[in-house]
């Protein structure tokens, strides 16, 4: 087989459940295929690696036509929590781990997890706010160095 992908660097920019999971599944899947993988968390994607927040990543129930839910219904108090809980049950049945466990597993596969410096500064965060699996807080330039020679995926 020619043109095999050897490396992927995935940018996670959203802090919603549907913004985070696809990136984690793709990174984990890459490693399972023997493909080198990096995850770069930026903007609201930082919530996925934030110690206090990554257990509480919610599904967006407003402005999400894919849910086939009336906009007013999506905005009802507790709706996001209910839908997130519902989806978590379905994910568990498929053996897809919760986000904190998934991140640990992905780090164990040898993938690199990084936080975006500009976003960390913007939100007034520091390395202590993040899970231990985060290798470093890096600049955009450093991200491109890391991604060199591979594919970049933005989610």
């Amino acid at each position, binding site marked *: 087989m020619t043109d095999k992908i050897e490396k992927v660097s995935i940018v996670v920019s959203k802090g919603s459940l549907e913004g985070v999971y696809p990136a984690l599944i793709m990174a984990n899947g890459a*490693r399972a295929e023997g493909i080198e993988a990096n995850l770069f968390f930026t903007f609201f994607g930082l919530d996925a690696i934030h110690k206090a927040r990554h257990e509480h990543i919610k599904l967006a129930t407003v402005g999400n036509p894919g849910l086939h839910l009336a906009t007013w219904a999506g905005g009802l108090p507790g709706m996001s929590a209910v839908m997130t809980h519902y989806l978590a049950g379905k994910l568990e049945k498929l053996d897809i781990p919760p986000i904190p466990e998934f991140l640990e597993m992905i780090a*164990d596969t040898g993938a690199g997890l990084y936080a975006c410096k500009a976003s960390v500064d913007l939100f007034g965060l520091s390395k202590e706010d993040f899970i231990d699996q985060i290798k470093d807080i890096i600049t955009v330039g450093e991200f491109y160095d890391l991604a060199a020679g591979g594919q970049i995926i933005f989610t």
Partner: protein
Amino acid sequence: MPTRVYAGVEVTVNDEGFFTDPEQWREEMAAELAAESGIAVLTEQHWQVVKHMRHEYETKGTGPTVRALGKTSGVSIKELYQLFPKGPAKLAARIAGIPKPRGCI
């Protein structure tokens, strides 16, 4: 269907080199299969995973994914990737002579 010779026996494989008939597999073939995947020596721990893979396939009809391997083989995910750097489930399945597991996780 392509054929290859392992341990002096001709077997049929698919385009990715996975056995199409797991019945054709013999333990003696594992070392050659491993060498093709860049694993020079099959240690006891490699064998633990390969045998587990084979066992799971025989009982469930499909090989486990990496996460399932980590939970059931007695070898952690971290160690699995040290043993099989180019993808634990994929390589162990190939060495065990079973089809490639198709899970996403």
